[in-house]
């Protein structure tokens, strides 16, 4: 996978993850173009499209579009599954996730994604393991915050 973008129906970017090094300018350009292309598509149209030399796999969940770019030889269906799995993870973590959860806790959304996908490849297929890792890392964070508070 080359990158993943989350954006709203209004075209607002909610999350971006790039697994290929690109300059900010390029990223912006790609994002703009892609958001426009995907938003222009009708609801019943195919979730896959060819774009430049990449394949775009996207899926809309409520008001949010999840959009991944993969290479020519990658499998679209498994990418769709990755998207869905990520949504399930978000859902489990936030408890029936909504767009606002991702806006306000965007760093959490990134942490979850990082535990699930690494360098563009799915690293952990077990939902339980991903959530466990996140929870423990969160716990670590909470601990330290409370230690700090006590030390003050």
């Amino acid at each position, binding site marked *: 996978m080359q990158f993943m973008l989350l954006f709203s129906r209004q075209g607002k970017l909610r999350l971006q993850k790039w*697994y290929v090094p690109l300059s900010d300018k390029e990223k912006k350009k790609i994002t703009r173009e892609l958001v426009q292309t995907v938003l222009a598509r009708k*609801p019943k149209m195919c979730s896959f499209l060819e774009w430049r030399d990449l394949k775009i796999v996207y899926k809309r969940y409520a008001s949010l579009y999840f959009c991944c770019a993969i290479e020519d030889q990658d*499998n679209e269906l498994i990418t769709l599954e990755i998207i869905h799995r990520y949504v399930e993870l978000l859902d489990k973590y936030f408890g029936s996730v909504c767009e606002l959860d991702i806006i306000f806790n965007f760093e959490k959304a990134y942490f979850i994604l*990082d535990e699930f996908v*690494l360098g563009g490849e799915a690293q952990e*297929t077990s939902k339980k393991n991903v959530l466990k890792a996140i929870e423990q890392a969160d716990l*670590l964070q909470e601990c330290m*915050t409370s230690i700090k508070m006590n030390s003050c």
Partner: protein
Amino acid sequence: MALKIVKGSIDRMFDKNLQDLVRGIRNHKEDEAKYISTCIDEIKQELKQDNIAVKANAVCKLTYLQMLGYDVSWAAFNIVEVMSSSKFTYKRIGYLAASQCFHESTDVIMLTTNQIRKDLSSPNQYDTGVALTGLSCFVTPDLARDLANDIMTLMSHTKPYIRKKAVLIMYKVFLKYPESLRPAFPRLKEKLEDPDPGVQSAAVNVICELARRNPKNYLSLAPLFFKLMTSSTNNWVLIKIIKLFGALTPLEPRLGKKLIEPLTNLIHRALDLLYGMVSKKNLMEIVKKLMLHVDKAEGTTYRDELLTKIIDICSQSNYQYITNFEWYISILVELTRLEGTRHGHLIASQMLDVAIRVKAIRAFAVAQMATLLDNAHLLTGNMQRNGICEVLYAAAWICGEFSEHLENPIQTLEAMLRPKVATLPGHIQAVYVQNAAKLFATVLKGQEGNTDSTAAQETSQLMIDRLPLFVQSANLEVQERASCILQLVKYIQKLQQKDVEVAEEVSALFAGELNPVAPKAQKKVPVPEGLDLDAWINEPPSESESEDEQPKAIFAKEEPKHSRPRHTEVDEKELARRREARKQEQANNPFYIKASPSSQKVYQDTPGVEHIPVVQIDLSVPLKVPGMPMSDQYVKLEEERRQKERAEKKKKEKKKRKEKRSGRGKKQDSGPESEEDITPAHMVDIVTEEMPENALPILILFYFLSVNILLTEMIAFFWPSFKVCDIQGNLQDGSQVVVSVIFENKCDSFLKSMEFNVLDSLNSKLQRPEGSGPHDGLTVPFQLPPGVSNEARFVFTVQSIVMPQKLKGTLTFIVKNEDSSTHEKLDFKLHFTCTSYLITTPCYSDAFAKLLESGDLKGSSVRLEGVNMPFHHLLARICFHHHFSVVERIDSCASMYSRSIQGHHVCLLVKTSGQTVSIDAKCDEPTLLGNVLDEIKQTFSQC
């Protein structure tokens, strides 16, 4: 210092955190840019402070702004600072910011090398984790070179959490610094067999990616991957491996053969999925794809599998998804071209089923079948062994039964009487003969009206010429039918010669429509009194009788016989013994013509047989039987039909709208049609639970013993307005309990696809239709519009009735609203009380006395306190709730009797004095009695 920290945290209280920033941006929609520029100024101030918490907060906000498209590259150094924090909370934010903002040309990356190395070797796995995650996003060739060794070490870390991350990131390292591949590869290969599935899948991912670039180098890993493919249950991994093999097989052709088996297993799983995926809209497309695979399939097993799957998919739920039966018939006809399939029978039964039930299709089906008969020689390459000739059974029957639709009946008649027919299996010949007679009747009808009377006579002559071949048949049924019909035709010919018109009378032989009957209809016909179906009429047949060709039920859709393994495994010795005995018997039997080797020889020596040239039919060219349409063209036709339908619908809608003349019309939704919009081109007669209406009064007979109330333990969870009420039992025989359930839809939505399922216990089992698994639910045979209730009955078999039982069950159903539908589940418990196994049975006092005297019964008693009701009420209550009858009553004392469905006698002696009721009871089954008494006690404790 302490003061500074305190001061810092106080300051912090006035800072915006990320949530404040997000909220602020959302509140300043009009002047977002301005608002953000002030925020950035604030952030710059925050970054200048020493407090790391403040800095981290600022960096976190910057990351958000970066996503919104603002340039934050100026803060790169601050990000590195936050990354280096010793606290995980900040480190995490720092690395996140870095992974979002850094790219190869970010110069501060150079400064991070040591920090990252330190984090990688941190004792805290989450420190290592964030470092690896971050690195995966911004790894540069320099970083890759400097850190390759550290990451390689991490591949053998004790924690799988770290191992899998390290493995995955190695791929990025390889890309940036290819020299690292060689030293790291052995370890990577080792990870393919890592005990942790996550690490394993990571290694598979990396190697698959590498192999994609250069497959040749990875051929040596094929055996390892093969092992993984056959052992792994992780679909994610499987997909990758299959793809890898896709790259490897061109290089090593031998791999292909090895892969067939595991791959077909996977394909089977996929085929099973297809079954649930079809809809009216995609059925044709899916079947078309499957047909392509059928054509390409190499193994017959796989091809047969595809064939059954196609038929399964098409015929599911009464052909629910078929909109065009002409298409389906052509698919079936195309399937007949499969040589050597075992499923000729299945195709045949489908042809019959469709031709019988879809009236509109008959003309078409008949035309197809006639061509099939005409080209029968193409189907029957190797007569006896070729299962496909079964379809001729269907073809002959359809052509005969619906012969009025034939365009050229004489030609078909001629085809059915060809000498070659005699080589077909017996049961097919029998159908040929019988249906030739039907056809004959039709032909006569057509010919007698004409002026030329010789034509009719010629037809009779044709029958008389050809039928003797069948009269000589070895198959008894063929023989019998043929000779019967031959004599009939001869008689007809005599009449014809006297210029008597016979057509009317001949066709009267076959008049009347054959109606399909529900498969369960027979069950509902009551068994006449005095008929014992289990008793042998004759002595049971001796074992040696071989089961020859069993008549096949052609109307049954599926044949369970096939799925059941045949028990023909008799050990060799036994076989030899029997063979010997048989030979002996035959030798002594003067009527038995011995199979001598010479007789076979005679046959072989028939002159010329060997010299007849056998023409090889080239099957690589798909056989296109002349006059037979290809199913493909239907796909196109159907598309056109639907388009037309849609267009018409649109027109109608437009008209409607015009009539309404509502000011501004809504935008026309030109999206693809929904399932409901597709109307079928032909309707099917659906015969499942319901029977033909006229058959109803005779067929239905239920043994209602409505007094027996099986209790409802009401339902643990309720669908807001859906209620399963009243479960009452009806008893049929000693081991069967019928539970009637009234389903009432109390919500505003439409309920459909209800499935009733109960978790069987050892003792009680829900009776499921033959062929379904022990955990399958039963489909409730109706749907419920809002506010409607309906009753369904379920039969349970119960072994022991001495104990009460609770069965857990679920009802699943689809709640359908206008725009959405959800799948819902309702859990419930079925309570089989012991009382429910009792049947009210009258008993005379003398019989009652005898029963008590016999001494077979064991006693027990119970005392009820504080019963505040007249004695006759009390008795009525026991009678009503517990299915007893009063034998005798004297003052405040009564004897009562009941009998269980398994014949246990239960006798009660009820006495009352004041508010105390004592019940002395006797029964031949003490456990049952105890439970019944408990239940009686409970009834009275509730009042």
